[in-house]
């Protein structure tokens, strides 16, 4: 049994409440549609995120193997020196996009892959295994940028779904039942008042008639 709203049982309030119930139901339907659409969007992105994650894990494993090989071949210290002379890679552009009113990031980036010449370290003093490492991790970066977008989108959608769900449930299980219960209460109360009034009139009429008879006699 839902608790009642704190209103006076008047006809005005009854009309008001009925109007509010229609509005709440309309809002509830809208929110529910939004939730369904969000969930559908969510699943498309979920699949993408999961497969990207798997790919990334696999790629990084390979890349770290390549790194190990290079470390053994060139030496850890030497590799660090080489890393110091690497030119910074391209930057990314982050924009905003809207999915069902949820702002999600849209990352624009060119591929991070470069030719060995663009990397900036000297060829003579390095071995090809260094090139392999750099290449592998550039590929990893490409993946990471895509994953960053997808996973962030997923997170934001999830948050939005959660709040929408909460709102839908609040309307469905608390606000609307409470208002309906109050409408029922007001109706009963008004009926009761009408019956009382009717009875009072009858009683008064009977009294008047009795008095008239008494005077006539």
């Amino acid at each position, binding site marked *: 049994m839902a608790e009642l709203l704190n209103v006076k049982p008047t006809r005005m309030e009854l009309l008001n409440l009925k109007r509010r119930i229609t509005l709440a139901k309309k809002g509830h339907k809208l929110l529910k549609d939004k939730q369904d659409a969000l969930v559908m969007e969510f699943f498309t992105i979920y699949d993408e995120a999961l497969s990207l994650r798997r790919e990334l894990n696999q790629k990084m494993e390979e890349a770290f193997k390549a790194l190990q090989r290079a470390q053994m071949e060139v030496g850890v210290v030497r590799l660090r020196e080489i890393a110091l002379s690497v030119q910074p890679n391209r930057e990314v552009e982050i924009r905003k996009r809207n999915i069902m009113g949820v702002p999600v990031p849209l990352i624009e980036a060119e591929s991070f892959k470069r030719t060995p010449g663009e990397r900036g370290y000297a060829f003579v003093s390095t071995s090809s295994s260094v090139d392999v490492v750099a290449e592998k991790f550039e590929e990893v*970066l490409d993946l990471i940028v895509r994953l960053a977008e997808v996973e962030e989108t997923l997170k934001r959608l999830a948050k939005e779904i959660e709040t929408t769900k909460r709102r839908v449930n609040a309307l469905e299980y608390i606000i609307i039942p409470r208002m309906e219960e109050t409408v029922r209460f007001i109706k009963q109360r008004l009926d009761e008042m009408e019956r009382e009034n009717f009875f009072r009139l009858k009683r008064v009429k009977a009294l008047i008639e009795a008095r008239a008879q008494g005077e006539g006699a």
Partner: protein
Amino acid sequence: MKIAVLGDSDTALAFKLAGVHEVYSFKETPLELERLRNKLRELVERGDIGIVLITERLAAKVELPDVRFPIILQIPDKSGSAFGEEAIREIVRRAIGVELKR
């Protein structure tokens, strides 16, 4: 916008080779973790960093700020991924209320 990497020395070295703009390496001592927290805060507040990559191992040791920008992404380190997919599943569990097997 730039990409920043926070990780152990090997991860840092690898991403440095790939030409990531800002690379910081941290060990797992209390002092270094404090440095990591400060660096993380700085990167979030700076505004010219678009993506922050942090290894799962380090991410587990500090609390990641809950911000919309920059994007913070956890990446596996040389010992592999412990919970990359698990993290995604957790998001789904919270949002939908049921776990999905795919």
